[in-house]
Structure formats: C-alpha cells, structure tokens
C-alpha cells in the first residue's frame, strides 16, 4: 500500500520533471544529444589531427563511449544533491529517502534511452547492421543501470553529511572519464595495464557496448559477471545505508 504510493510519487515526479524540462527549455533534449556529440568531435579532432594518433578510434567508436559514459555521469551528478536539496520538504513529510535519487535516475535514463536509440540508428546507418549479439544489449543496459543506481544512491546519501562531496564527485568523474577508454581502445594498451583499467566499471561497460554494436561479437562474460557481482554487493550495502539514515538524515540538513 505504502510502496504503491511511493512508486506513484516517483513516476509522477519524474513525469513532472520531464515535462518541465521540455516546456521551460525546449533545448533540453537537444543538449542531451549535443554533449556527447561535442565530446566526440573534440576527441576525434584532437587525436586524429592534432596528435595524429593511429590508435585513435573512429567517430562511431568514440560516440559509443561518449554516450554510454554520459548516462552514468549524468545519473551520478544530477542525483547527487537530490536528498540534500529536498531538505525543506523532508522536514514536513516522511518519504523513504531512496525515492529522491530514484526520481532523477528515472528522468536521466529516459533521456538516455532516447539518445541511445539514435545511436543505434547511427551505428546501423554507418555499416554495422544488427547481429545476434544485440541480444546482449538489454543485459548491458540493466547492468549499467545497476552500476548507475549503486553509485548514484551512495553519493546522494553521503551528500547531506559532506556537502563538499558534490565537488569531489565532479572532479573524480572528470578524471575517470579520461581513463574509461572513451577515445582509445584499452586493448591496444600493453597487456600489463589491462587489469587496472578494467577495475573501472565504465571501461568494462564501454568496451562491451562496442563489442556488440561495432564488432558484432559477444562481450566478455567473465568481466561482466564480475561487474554484476560487484554491483549487486554495492547495491545491497547502499540500501543498508539508506535503512540506517532514513529517519535521521533530515537532522543534518540545514536548509
């Protein structure tokens, strides 16, 4: 009964946010498309022309990386303040705190799916028709959602206690972006480094999407299996954290 109500709140708020975005700034969706496009162009020009790097990926190669990356980074960045910023409201009503980041995850994911669909069309149009390995795409999306959820919920829960975390997370994401293999194939690096690069979930995910979309092959199941296990463990820990702070976090928010 109560959970039904919380579910309705999540969907209703998400709908309201999307509607507001479409109404107030009609560039909303365009920006979502523009950001990965700009990143792609930037990396491509930088690598192919300025540095004349032979290892630089094709435009499609970078585009897959940039779009996949953007989903995760937007989820984390936009939900980071969701609990903290709702402090005023939370002083008046009880809501399970997990509801707040979930609303943001939902709206961000909705916009991502729109961009992802365009990516699929682009990839097909540029000579990579769908193959049997496309079966893995829903699995990849679900796994990435678990990763996004785990990290985003964790950050949103920590923010009220350490408001500085917003800046730290921003900086961390910027650095992580450079080593996630968005504009270079990790496979081309010396084998000794692979292990360290693949400690980064985003490197595994981006590589897997490319396997499926551009190389018509199955992603690396052992890597994905390990990542799934890690994501599930993190998610459980995070939910335990939410149980702990659910009826006390409001006291730390001074707004």
């Amino acid at each position, binding site marked *: *009964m109560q959970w*039904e*109500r919380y579910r*309705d*709140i999540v969907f*209703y*708020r998400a709908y*309201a*946010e999307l*509607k*507001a975005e479409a*109404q*107030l700034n009609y560039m909303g969706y365009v920006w979502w498309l523009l950001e990965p496009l700009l990143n792609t162009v930037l990396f491509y020009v930088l690598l192919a022309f300025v540095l004349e790097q032979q290892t630089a990926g094709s435009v499609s190669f970078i585009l897959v990386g940039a779009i996949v990356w953007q989903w995760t980074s937007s989820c984390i960045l936009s939900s980071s303040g969701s609990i903290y910023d709702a402090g005023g*409201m*939370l*002083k*008046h*009503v*009880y*809501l399970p705190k997990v509801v707040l980041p979930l609303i943001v995850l939902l709206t961000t994911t909705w916009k991502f799916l729109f961009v992802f669909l365009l990516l699929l069309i682009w990839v097909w149009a540029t000579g990579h028709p769908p193959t049997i390995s496309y079966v893995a795409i829903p699995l990849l999306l679900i796994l990435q959602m678990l990763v996004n959820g785990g990290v985003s919920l964790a950050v949103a829960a920590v923010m009220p206690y350490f408001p500085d975390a917003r800046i730290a997370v921003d900086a961390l994401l910027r650095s992580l972006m450079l080593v996630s293999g968005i504009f270079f194939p990790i496979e081309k690096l010396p084998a000794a480094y692979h292990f360290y690069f693949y400690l980064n979930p985003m490197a595994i995910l981006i590589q897997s999407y490319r396997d499926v979309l551009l190389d018509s092959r199955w992603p690396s199941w052992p890597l994905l299996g390990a990542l799934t296990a890690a994501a599930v463990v993190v998610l459980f820990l995070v939910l335990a954290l939410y149980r702990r702070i659910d*009826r*006390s976090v*409001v*006291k*730390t928010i001074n707004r």
Partner: protein
Amino acid sequence: MSKSLITLQEAGICYRRSHGFFKGQRSEFWALKSVSLEVKQGETLGVLGRNGAGKSTLMRVLAGIILPDRGSVHSQPGLRTTLLSIGVGSHSTLSGRQNAILNGMMLGASRKQMIASLDRIKEFSELGDFFEEPIYTYSSGMHARLGFATAMEVDPDIMLIDEMLSVGDSSFQKKSGDALLERLKSGKTAVLISHDAGTIARLCSRAVWIEDGVAVASGAPDEIGQRYEEAMRQGHASPVVE
C-alpha cells in the same frame, strides 16, 4: 479510556554538529531531552511551549520523519500521521489538478484517493478555470488555497498542525479555519502546536507543556494554559533568549 495511537517514552532528539575541516570537534544539542506523551484516539492534543522549546522537533518525531536518539516511540502499525502543510513537493509547471494529486500523495494519500477528491478540491480552493493552469501562474493566495484544499482531502489518522493554519484572504481564512475546526470536532485525532495558551485552551481536549525539550506538565488545557502563562510572565522579567 480511548486507546493510544502513539506513545513516546522519554524520547530525546540530538542534533550533532561538526566543526572544522577534519570534523574533529563535535557539539551536541538536545532539542528534545525527555518527552513522554500519548496521543489518544479521537482527542485533540495541544502542545504548548515557547519558541525554541522543541515543539517542531516533537512534531517531526510524531510524523515519523526522525526517530528519537534515546527513549522510544511506538505507534499503531499502519498509522498515517501527517503534518498538515501547504504545497509540499509541488511542481511549478504542473497544473493545479496535477499538483493536487502530487501534494496529496506526498502527504500520505493514494493516487486513486486524490483523483477521487479532485472535484472537491477544485470547489473548495475556488480556483475555477485556474485549476487547469500551471501553478507558476498562481498568486500566493491561490497557492495557499490549493494547498489547503488538498491537505484537507488527505484525511490521515492523525493530523499534526503546527500553529493555527490561516491562509489566503480574510474570507478564505475563515473558511479554512472553519473546515479545520469541523475536523477537530468530528472526532479526528489531532495534535496542535502553539505558543499561545488561548488557542490551545479553545481547541484542545488535553494539553502538554514543553519547556526546554522536556514535557514538564500535562492535563486540562485551561489549567496547563494558566500555569504556562504564569511562567511566561515571570520569564519575561528576565529577557528570554531564543
């Protein structure tokens, strides 16, 4: 003796603050030190106390927003306790109708319940055609009317009222005040917070006096009110620090 819906036993709430970069120094502030009270079915319990006595913190405990750091709180399973508030979680681009549903859900009603009460909300709020317009076009009086009409439809098991709500222009103030009074008289369980002994004596069936985070007395509203006013008069001989 009617059954008690919520029981607080020596409940205390502590706000902890950290100072400095490494969070080494910590200070504690007990907004509630020890409060024991019962909210019984059908009563209007008045909580009387001056500003800063811990009344709002007590409300948050009763609403289930925070749990006590010491002592205990027990409430009937499935009990819906709602702090009556205006326009919580509303969204400026949604219409009045949509915000009524959203606010109502925030305050504890189901979506179905809110959809079923939309006609009454529209009528009570006197919004007319504005009900379908986005609420960023509303005046503050219209916001208040919509919020109040919505809150009235939520119908929780226990209504928590922080100070007497009076919203809108004078005619709506009377209308909303009357609606609230009607609820209180019809046997709805409610907790009313005020720093004014008169309000408590007029509206409540029982009163609790909170001073400096402690429930110092409880009993008949007029008697508690008199003792409170007496203490306030003496207190004002020396300046009250808030």
